[in-house]
């Protein structure tokens, strides 16, 4: 069985009076079981050379619904004003600013549950990886 882990560390010495040092690791498994996740797409990069319209990154119809899929995204831009708007079935998740990353579960609960990205400028590059159950 493959073992895939995701570790996050949140740290700050000056946000609170006490040091913030949060770290946790998740072993990615299937939905409601302890079997390691079995498929992945990526690691990949995509640059939208011209135009910055909304773009389908993953089509909800292509993935089994109600599973334990996980998605990693990173905006590789170094221009602080450049962001990717991330939406799921049209609902805005948030703006991924330059250098920021995100990691979240995706249930692909129906065919409309596409993950779309909308860069704020031309020639922006997104790095991404999908783990599927």
């Amino acid at each position, binding site marked *: 069985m*493959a*073992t*895939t*882990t*995701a*570790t*996050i*560390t*949140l*740290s*700050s*010495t*000056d*946000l*609170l009076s006490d040091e*913030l040092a*949060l770290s*946790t690791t*998740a*072993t*990615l*498994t299937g*939905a*409601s*079981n*302890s079997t390691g996740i079995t*498929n*992945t797409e990526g690691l990949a990069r995509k640059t939208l050379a011209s135009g910055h319209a909304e773009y389908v990154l993953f089509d909800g119809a292509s993935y089994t619904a*109600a*599973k*334990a*899929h*996980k998605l*990693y995204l*990173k905006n590789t831009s170094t221009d*602080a*004003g450049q*962001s990717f708007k*991330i939406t*799921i*079935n*049209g*609902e*805005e*998740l*948030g*703006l991924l*600013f330059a*250098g*920021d*990353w995100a*990691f*979240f*579960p*995706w*249930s692909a*609960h129906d065919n409309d*549950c596409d993950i779309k990205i909308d860069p704020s400028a031309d020639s922006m590059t997104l790095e991404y*990886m999908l*783990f599927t159950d």
Partner: protein
Amino acid sequence: MAITTAAVTLTSDLLSDNMSVSASTTCMKAGTTADGLDQIEYAIVEIATGDQYDLICSTPTASKGSKLYVKNHSIDETYYVEIMIDAQAIGRLYAGDWMFIPADFHDANADVEITALNGTNKIEYALLHEGTALIAS
């Protein structure tokens, strides 16, 4: 300016080549490189089954650089929470899983909603933000 760093490492032996991906970012206010996020809500709550709850009870300022971390501390592998934004399902956070997203609360309906399934789930969350609309007493 407060400096808060968020780092991730993904490792896997799923592929023929072992994979290790790392990324780190300093959590900044929207569109800046000079001003870090300097406000935080950090808590742990137990979510009972049966109802959908707003995870963040305050109203963060819309379309900013807020970051949301959520971890499911459940141990039973069948336990999970459904994460939704404005009634749109995002994904299921199973026992032991965590997530980290930019959460821009783009309008008044863009609440982060959470529903526990199969048992009471213990949820840890941290919201780094640029300000919230406080409720007058």
